[in-house]
């Protein structure tokens, strides 16, 4: 007697098939060792050199044609609160109390860190972001439709939304003065810094420079280059005289690009939505066809 194709058999078969298909997305993670463009530029901020003069903020404001801030650049009261970059300032300097000496201050400049494999670019549904071979992460306002996924996904809370114009939504952030870099000039903030606290150069040279600085002055620096590995590596890196958690740096960021957290799942989505319907549809059609054949045969027998 011929065995009926039960519901259980159907689930077994499809389960095995879909399991086999799910192996495929793993092959997509073969390029996960991407560690950035080889000749990418970057900046190294030596936080022990920064004196909090805010020349970088002023230079950034002028270079990008931003509106005058509510609190002038030579006003100290701005340090009373911790600010973050927004549509009116692509870089801000925040003040922290030195954990070793409460009477002293340490300043931290915040701007886009220009990740090697940027989470904002991965999350953007319409590729409005681009990681250039020069290192800068650029954003195209013409493509953006204002979903703000990039704001949610950025581990450094950098992209900001321009609420100034309701009709033309756009995300704003530091672009490492890309046009200036292309013209062979330094980013505006780097050029303006009186203390030379920001060094511009090839990312690989900057890592060597940072290592050398730490090695020569082990009592001055903590042995950590922030941005060398954080989020898979960033173009903008920092060295500091105190551990980075004292300066408001997020220290829970994985050492791999954030896209890898979701790559497996996202790789499975097209498979699930294209292959599964076709496969199950085919199995269903085959089973239905066989049942119809079976029934018609029975009917013929009865007759």
């Amino acid at each position, binding site marked *: 007697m011929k065995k009926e194709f039960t519901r259980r058999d159907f689930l077994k078969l499809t389960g095995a098939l879909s399991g086999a298909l799910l192996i495929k997305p793993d092959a997509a993670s073969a390029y996960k060792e991407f560690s950035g463009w080889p000749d990418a*530029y970057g900046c*190294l901020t030596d936080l022990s*050199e920064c*004196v*909090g*003069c*805010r020349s970088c903020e002023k230079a950034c404001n002028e270079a990008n044609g931003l509106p005058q801030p509510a609190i002038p*650049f*030579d*006003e*100290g009261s701005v340090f009373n609160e911790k600010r973050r970059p927004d549509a009116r300032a692509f870089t801000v300097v925040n003040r922290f109390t030195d954990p070793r000496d409460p009477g*002293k*201050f340490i*300043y931290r400049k915040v701007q886009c860190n220009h990740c090697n494999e940027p989470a904002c670019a991965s999350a953007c549904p319409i590729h409005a972001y681009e990681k250039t071979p020069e290192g800068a992460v650029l954003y195209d306002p013409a493509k953006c439709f204002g979903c703000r996924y990039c704001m949610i996904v950025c581990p450094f809370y950098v992209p900001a939304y321009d609420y100034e114009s309701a009709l033309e939504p756009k995300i704003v952030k530091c672009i490492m003065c890309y046009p200036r870099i292309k013209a062979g000039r*330094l980013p505006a903030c*780097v*050029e303006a*810094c*009186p*203390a*030379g606290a920001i*060094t*511009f*150069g*090839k990312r690989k*040279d*900057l890592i060597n*420079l940072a290592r*050398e600085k730490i090695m*020569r002055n082990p009592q001055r620096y903590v042995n950590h280059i922030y941005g060398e590995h954080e989020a898979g590596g960033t173009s903008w890196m920092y060295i500091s005289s105190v551990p980075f958690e004292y300066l408001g740096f997020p220290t829970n960021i994985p050492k791999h690009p954030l896209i890898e957290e979701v790559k497996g799942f996202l790789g499975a989505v097209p498979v699930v939505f294209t292959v599964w319907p076709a496969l199950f549809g085919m199995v269903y059609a085959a089973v239905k066809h066989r049942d119809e054949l079976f029934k018609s045969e029975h009917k013929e027998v009865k007759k």
Partner: protein
Amino acid sequence: MRKTLLISILLFFFLTLLFYQGAGSVSYPKVILLNSISNKYTAVKFNHEKHISMSGGCSQCHHEHQKNESLICKDCHNLTPALFKNSVHRNFMACRNCHSEFNPQVPQMPDLKAAYHRACFQCHRGMDVGIEPKGCSGRCHLLKTAKTERRSP
């Protein structure tokens, strides 16, 4: 053997004496006008004499031969300490000879502005720099305005 040792000790003694005298006879500038990058501010009148008495020696601001610094200039100009000292004291090299524009190919070398400021900030940071952002024009710089433009040299 003993003779060579004696000669070398004597030679060392005399050489030390010679260079000590050489160092003693150097005339240091008293007040220096730092005006090479004064596009925004007026020239800084730097009281060199006063700073010599307060600093812990020339090497606090200037490169000195006995400091075991890793300087890129040493790649080519690998002078012996004596020669270096002699040349520096006879013919002082201005900071801007090497510290000019920042070059990303040589990121370890600060430009002139950074080199100056770093020298100042090692002590002045916390005194008046780094407390309030307007410390700059309080002590050293005067902002160039129509008024100061006329007064500045």
